[in-house]
């Protein structure tokens, strides 16, 4: 009798143990799934944080050997992988192309010669205007415009120092200031000045000694001013004046500056 009574208890216990094992298995499985999900969420959060920490800036961009030559600095504290260089040529129909770069830049490091190894040639003397974009694996990008000064009018000034001479045969300085007044990240290339022939009244004359110094600015970033200098000898008689205009090669024809020097 005793053994029979115990049998049902044993059978009940076996079933209870099976149910318990299944429950424990399910809970373990759920915990594992949740843990994996948690790891993915943490990884994604870290990726988003890294994305925000990534920081790189344009140091300079020029045209060298008829190719772009871009230099960037990794100013963040994470290594970055520059994957592609996008180039849109505004002066050619529908021209948007990208070129693979795939180069790592360590924190604080400078990466030079970006664009020197891509199959794209650029003529610095042409009136080309480009939009350049560098992208990274984290989805960030650095974008800037680059091109000739002939796209938009620039702020410019021309001034004789002094602009009134008390004696004839005076050495005077001519300064030509060109400011890149673009509000966007707009890099102008190949800034070269050109002067008209002086137009003088009476026996007035302007004889060039030296200039321009410097002969050109390879690039002019937004907000920067290029200063060119010439030295002249101004001669003539009383009330004589000389007039000269300055503009940029490849610039807009109507975008020029002028100044006059005179004898009292």
């Amino acid at each position, binding site marked *: 009798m005793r053994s029979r009574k115990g049998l*049902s208890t044993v059978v009940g216990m076996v079933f209870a143990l099976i149910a318990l094992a299944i429950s424990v298995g399910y809970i373990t499985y759920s915990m594992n799934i949740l843990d994996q999900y948690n790891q993915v969420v943490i990884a994604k959060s870290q990726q988003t944080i890294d994305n925000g920490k990534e920081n790189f800036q344009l140091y300079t961009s020029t045209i060298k050997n008829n190719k772009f030559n871009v230099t960037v600095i990794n100013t963040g504290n994470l290594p970055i992988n520059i994957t592609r260089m996008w180039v849109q040529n505004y002066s050619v129909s529908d021209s948007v192309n990208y070129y693979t770069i795939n180069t790592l830049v360590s924190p604080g490091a400078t990466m030079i010669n970006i664009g020197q190894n891509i199959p794209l040639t650029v003529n610095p003397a042409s009136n080309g205007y480009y939009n350049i974009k560098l992208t990274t694996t984290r989805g960030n990008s650095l974008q800037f415009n680059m091109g000739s000064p002939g796209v938009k009018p620039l702020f410019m000034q021309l001034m004789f120092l002094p602009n009134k001479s008390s004696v004839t045969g005076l050495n005077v300085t001519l300064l030509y200031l060109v400011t890149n007044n673009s509000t966007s990240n707009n890099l102008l290339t190949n800034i070269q000045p050109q002067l008209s022939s002086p137009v003088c009244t009476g026996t007035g004359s302007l004889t060039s000694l030296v200039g321009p110094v410097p002969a050109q600015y390879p690039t002019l970033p937004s907000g920067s001013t290029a200063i060119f200098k010439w030295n002249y000898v101004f001669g003539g008689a009383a009330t004589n004046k000389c007039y000269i205009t300055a503009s940029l090669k490849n610039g807009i024809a109507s975008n020029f500056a002028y100044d006059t020097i005179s004898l009292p």
Partner: protein
Amino acid sequence: MQTQRGLSTVVATALMLSAVAVLGTTLVLWSTSNLRVYETSLATTSSSNTNRINEFLVIENVGFCKANGNCLKGHNYINITLANYGNIGLNVTQIKLNDSRYVYTFTNVPISPGKEYSWKNSTNYPWSSGKPQKIFITTGRGSIFTTQVTAP
């Protein structure tokens, strides 16, 4: 009398054992079946959410083209390039520009990891210079990637 009493005890014990066995088996089968359903549901939900989180689509470049300028198509359009920087493939199902008037749906635009996909409007899209353009990309898993660009 003693024999008859013993018989009823045996029958009662057998009934008890049968009842315990039937109830126990039912309980175990029911719980196994239910838990299996829950496990499948949990695995599916977790997997789809994990995949959705792992999707990493970047709207890498947006180009603008003007019909009266350098546009080859003869009408204004924008050229969007998407790059998949994630470690799983994805399927682009919709591109929406600014508002619901310009919604473009796709049935099969898969982008493998490390690959990109470029798209242009097949119809006129009247973008204006200097005005910001919002771009919404929806994937097959329901993720929405957005960006805002200003037309040149």
